[in-house]
């Protein structure tokens, strides 16, 4: 992609519409989905916009069918995506593992209902040794960037990638610019199936076992899976993304991801202005988790306060890497709307401020 001469115009868009537009901007040509709140808006936008841009969108009969269609589309070399919320992504786990192991690049939009899918996206529920690169934007403009980046990274590594969205990102209308990212060119997809190599002795095969063809044997499962594990290790080393503020002299570091990270960042800025030695760390890639950066950001800190809207999932990764494990406290928790479809009252700046101040008063 080449650099753009002038900035894209500012538009007032709902999050899901902005993400759909960003996907099309990334040359996504195939999308599937099954209505499920708060993902539904993305499916509606895609079904409207995708045919207009020459692509195809299927309102599918199940998430299982949808993700497998997406795998098929991607196997031909097209950029393809699917999505749901965590409940529907649960149904896709077998196919996400399959795409990881047979190296089919797809993008999954998890427009989650809350932050309880951290384990799902970072640990996964499929079989085999695979990891899923997951980006957790803090707001809609960042989701627009992440969407483009996810298609790029999926193709670069031939893996499934996940956007961890939420109801605020999905359903908020904000001013946003659909600015194309300047991403490096990728090699042609010579592995993609187009049917053209039949009968030549060089026909292609996409298969998790990678046994290849009789005239051109592949590495086979043992070596193939070892090679994949090495690929995930190299991704873990090179694709960590994060954002840190005021951490150099911080006695207290607040750690949060996604929309919650935007709230905590606001509160930390406020407390900093009031004279507290407090900093903020936000993992942007949930996998690979920016562990070394977290260790650096929390070096010397007396308190590491983890705010997440679940019973304690990311905190397990924080425990692996924080400079002093004894300094770690959970200050978040499960907080759901009565409908179960969105965040509860805990995602609120005064509430978060109260919890941080209470933690600051505790002897560290």
């Amino acid at each position, binding site marked *: 992609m080449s650099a753009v001469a002038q900035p894209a115009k500012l538009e007032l868009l709902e999050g899901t519409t902005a993400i759909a537009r960003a996907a099309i901007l990334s040359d996504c040509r195939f999308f599937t989905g099954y209505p499920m709140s708060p993902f539904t808006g993305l499916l509606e936008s895609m079904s409207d916009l995708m045919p207009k841009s020459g692509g195809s969108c299927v309102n599918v009969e*199940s998430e299982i069918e949808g993700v497998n269609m997406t795998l098929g589309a991607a196997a031909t070399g097209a950029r393809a995506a699917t999505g749901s919320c965590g409940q529907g992504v649960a149904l896709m786990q077998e196919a996400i593992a399959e795409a990881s192991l*047979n190296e089919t690049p797809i993008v999954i939009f998890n427009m989650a209902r809350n932050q309880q899918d951290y384990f799902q996206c970072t640990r996964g529920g499929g079989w085999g040794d695979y990891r899923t690169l997951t980006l957790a934007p803090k707001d809609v403009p960042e989701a627009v960037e992440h969407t483009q980046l996810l298609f790029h990274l999926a193709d670069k590594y031939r893996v499934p990638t996940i956007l961890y969205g939420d109801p605020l990102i999905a359903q908020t209308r904000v001013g946003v610019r659909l600015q194309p990212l300047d991403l490096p060119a990728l090699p042609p997809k010579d592995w993609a199936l187009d049917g053209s190599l039949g009968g030549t002795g060089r026909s*292609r*095969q996409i298969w998790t076992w990678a046994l290849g*063809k009789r005239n051109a044997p592949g590495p086979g499962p043992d070596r193939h899976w070892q090679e994949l594990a090495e690929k995930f290790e190299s991704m873990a080393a090179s694709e960590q993304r994060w954002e840190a503020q005021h951490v150099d002299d911080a006695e207290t570091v607040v750690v949060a991801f996604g929309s919650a990270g935007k709230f905590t960042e606001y509160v930390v800025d406020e407390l900093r202005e009031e004279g507290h030695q407090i900093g903020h760390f936000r993992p942007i890639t949930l996998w690979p988790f920016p562990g070394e950066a977290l260790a650096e950001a929390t070096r010397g800190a007396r308190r590491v306060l983890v705010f997440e809207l679940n019973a304690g999932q990311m905190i397990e990764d924080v425990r692996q890497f924080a400079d002093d494990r004894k300094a770690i406290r959970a200050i978040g928790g499960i907080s759901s709307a009565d409908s179960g479809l969105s965040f509860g009252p805990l995602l609120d700046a005064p509430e978060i401020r109260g919890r941080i101040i209470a933690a600051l008063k505790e002897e560290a």
Partner: protein
Amino acid sequence: MDVVTTDRPPGQEASKVAEAYPSLLLGDHSLCPGCGEPVALRILLETLQEMDLVQKTIAVVGHGCYGNFVQIIDLDCTLCLHGRAPASATGMKRMRPGSVVFTMQGDGDMVNEGLAEIVHAAARGENITCILLNNGVFGDTGGQQTATTVIGQRTKTSLEGRDPALHGHPIQIADIIAGLDGVGYVARGAVGTVRGVARTKKMIREAFESQLAGEGLSLVEILTMCPTGWFVTAPEGPDYLGESMESVYPMGELRARPNGEAG
């Protein structure tokens, strides 16, 4: 297309057989003696070759004994997840409408694991060709009951024979698909006899013609021998197929093309 006639000696040498092997098969299959699946594969590959579709075809293969075919067919192919071939093929065909896309599934793959996928792909009118290799048993895992196991058939999970009271009834998937709008062609063949092989090959051709004409989903169910899974000797396979399977799954076109020829 020349079709093998069985009522008199062939007028020409079996040159098609000799041609088919080296150009689209990269090696021998590893299936059991007496298995019907390699026969079905051969007439499928011959048809693609005769129709000059070899260099535009993508094969989407499910999980079963026939899954091994991805190693020996010289076609762009994938071994997709169990039951999901019609979904995977949907994505492929929509992205590559100029390609010919076919699926190959067994009865366990299509009718047990993937019933939703085949039904919805048919109802959507996806322009793909689906091949069902139906032997009424899970062959790959050693002879358990599938959704198409016929009443009375002994399997490792119906040792006294399939009993409707205990195990339910077999599903005639091709008849169900034939009743859906969005379908271009549906037929059921069998490879237990030479006549059946010839007739089935014509059906496969019709199915691909239907795809080329953009008529919607085409399905050819092919009854195949599985002597190992039926616990009979290899030579007894074709007779068992004729007696046990064909009475429940009769051969014939279940939905003809608007201007089709085969029957």
